[in-house]
């Protein structure tokens, strides 16, 4: 399984998640980033179960609307949920409250279970909305959107560099791994593996430091003076306005449900 993981994740070079084109793609990148961030803020700070459930169902609606590959999306989310499963098993026993059942003298509480479920639902809702609104654009569009949203430009440049060179460095890594495999290297739980991987990582660092020097040289040669041009014009269209209005109404509804819950 670890082999499969390694392969699928190192081949990402900043492209959007695979999906068919939908009306979500027509939306302005800034609107999508801001909406997703606000959604995360509201859902994570929710205290009401109803609000979080509503948020989650809205997240499913957005996933459907963005025409993401449902199977792949769920697989990503399930990876996280397996991790959450431990939380669901532990929290009922560590939270004081009304006893649900007793196991080896430890009592599991309803409050603990609700808490664990609430966390799981929140985490899922936020991820699904992020996937469908933000991950459906390419990573460089995301960087440009951040730049238009007045994120410090050094940070944006760093992001764009990371996106650009991720693929290059991962090619480098794969090349060296293949060379090791050609020499019959198989990973195991032993000192030899750790030493070899250490050498691999050290070599990766050296090669990337040298590559960085070459990149800087090439940039200097073209007169780089600390500024990149954002060559895409982002325009707010009527569709963006309608979507933002709808989205903010929904968020206000969620906030309202929470306030109502708190007042009771």
């Amino acid at each position: 399984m670890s082999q499969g993981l390694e392969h699928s994740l190192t081949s990402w070079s900043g492209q959007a998640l695979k999906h068919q084109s939908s009306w979500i793609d027509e939306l302005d990148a800034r609107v999508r980033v801001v909406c997703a961030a606000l959604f995360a803020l509201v859902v994570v700070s929710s205290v009401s179960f109803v609000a979080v459930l509503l948020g989650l169902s809205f997240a499913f609606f957005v996933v459907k609307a963005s025409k993401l590959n449902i199977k792949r999306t769920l697989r990503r989310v399930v990876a996280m949920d397996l991790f959450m499963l431990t939380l669901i098993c532990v929290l009922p026993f560590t939270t004081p409250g009304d006893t649900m059942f007793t196991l080896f003298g430890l009592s599991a509480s309803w409050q603990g279970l609700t808490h664990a479920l609430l966390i799981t639902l929140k985490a899922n809702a936020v991820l699904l909305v992020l996937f469908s609104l933000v991950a459906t654009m390419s990573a460089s569009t995301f960087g440009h959107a951040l730049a238009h949203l007045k994120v410090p430009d050094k940070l944006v440049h760093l992001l764009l560099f990371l996106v650009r060179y991720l693929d290059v460095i991962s090619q480098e890594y794969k090349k060296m791994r293949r060379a090791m495999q050609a020499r019959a290297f198989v990973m195991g739980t032993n000192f030899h593996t750790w030493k070899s991987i250490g050498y691999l990582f050290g070599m990766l660092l050296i090669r990337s430091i040298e590559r960085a020097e070459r990149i800087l040289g090439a940039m200097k040669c073209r007169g780089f003076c600390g500024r990149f041009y954002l060559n895409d014009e982002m325009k707010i269209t009527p569709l963006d306005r309608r979507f933002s209005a709808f989205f903010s109404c929904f968020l206000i509804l969620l906030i309202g449900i929470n306030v109502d819950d708190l007042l009771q």
Partner: protein
Amino acid sequence: MHIVDGALSAPVLAGGALLAIVGIFIGLKKMDYDQLPLVGVLASVFFIASYIHLPLGFSSVHLIMNGLLGILLGWVAFPALLVALLLQVIFFGFGGLLVLGVNTLNIALPAVFMYYLCYRGIRHDSAKVAAIWGAIGGAGAIVITSIMVAFSLALSGESFVLAAKAVLPAHIPIMVVEAFVSYSAVYLIHSVKPDAIHRDLIS
């Protein structure tokens, strides 16, 4: 290692985010435009490192390598790790959006600690001694990271205390692996390109 959205309490989230922003600000101040390619490329090395899964008995662990990155980058590790974690959240779903501040702080602050702790040791003339300092940096960063993860969990509520106590022992295998891997990585760099370590990459 990645804490997910919804688990931590609001004060912890806000405090973590605030401290992370301070760290990122210092990092960005220290970083020149000329160092952008270097930092970007090293951030992608970190990104790739977290996909190198090493088998460990029946399961596997992935490298984190924040210690070594910190030794090379110092405070600049903050922005470098932030962008890497941000992309991992959005495109792979590791961690969460609002806990990004806490996660960045938990991984980048130990890296900065290791920068100051190992600054002299890593520049030792003997490759062996330098490599031992590299191992200390690699393992030490994981120790501090797991303590910080435990703290951010424990501060978020009574019910997380048990989970917080489990964090440190759970990271012991990664600590050991990371120490050995960092040892050989520094040993190799010292023998092949000592310049990369002796010179300050970020001044």
